[in-house]
């Protein structure tokens, strides 16, 4: 699968900017969202090739947004990679249960993020 456009989601401006710079610096087209609901909406409207999704967010968290994306007929084939400070095995298993294709634990390196994207 060729990844060109990536939706980056994080409610933290700092983390969002960091992720955006990493991904755009590698040549991907980046769109952003700052909440779970916004992520689901932009996945439907922008149809990115992949989603990098923060987990801990108010209201709809990343797990819930991931499930919404992977359960929607229109977006179910778009791979979601969770990016979170929640690093327990439980979180990774729960993320996989919600349909995530990858899980990166914060703090991350640029290589970790790009390796996940390239593996899709």
């Amino acid at each position: 699968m060729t990844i060109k456009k990536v939706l980056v989601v994080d409610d933290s401006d700092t983390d969002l900017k960091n992720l955006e710079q990493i991904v755009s610096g590698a040549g991907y087209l980046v769109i952003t969202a700052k909440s779970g609901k916004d992520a689901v909406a932009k996945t439907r409207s922008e149809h990115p090739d992949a989603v990098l999704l923060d987990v801990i967010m108010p209201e709809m968290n990343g797990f819930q947004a991931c499930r919404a994306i992977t359960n929607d007929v229109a977006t179910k084939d778009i791979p979601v990679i969770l990016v979170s400070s929640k690093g327990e095995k439980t979180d990774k298993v729960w993320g996989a249960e919600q349909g995530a294709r990858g899980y990166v634990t914060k703090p991350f390196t640029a290589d970790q993020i790009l390796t996940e994207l390239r593996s899709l």
Partner: protein
Amino acid sequence: MSPFSPKMHSTNDAVLPGGGTVRPSEALDGGFSPASVEASAPDVPGSTAAAERLAVRVGNLHLLLAADAGREVILPLPASRLPHTPAWLLGIANVRGALVPVVDLASAFEVERADLSRPYLLILGTGDDAIGLLVDGLPVLQRFESIGKLSGVPPHPPMLDGHVYGAFEHAGVVWLDINVHGFLESLSELISPTTG
């Protein structure tokens, strides 16, 4: 004898047969209000579609919740007890700054906790509406074929009276399909302090 505890209640006489960067696949190897919790939709009668549910275990009870009822699953956290509350309300836990009431379902249902299963805290709802349910083992999403759907409501703990949509049998295990919203509402009423 009921497959559950002697204090189980049956609403009919049906006799039922008696867990840096890691890929998920690698990982796999190795007073609240229920307003924000989705209600589990009962299946359309006659439908042959499979039903997806969040399957949780509490002792020898096997419960099915709405597939998107779970917000997250975490390891149990210390909870501060509240005076004049039921024993099954373990207290209030601090989940990343949010105060979440924690309910020991095994205690609430008066069943023995599973010895070999690690307890987890299943968080439902958001913010002030969040609640944590102590369950045995990791909840998993599972599909249940309509062919496994049982007629009638199997024996269940009294606290679930009126909140069991029905049941599925899968691999010899009976799974109770729970109306999460209704169950949490009744829990909320039991927890709420009395006035006057």
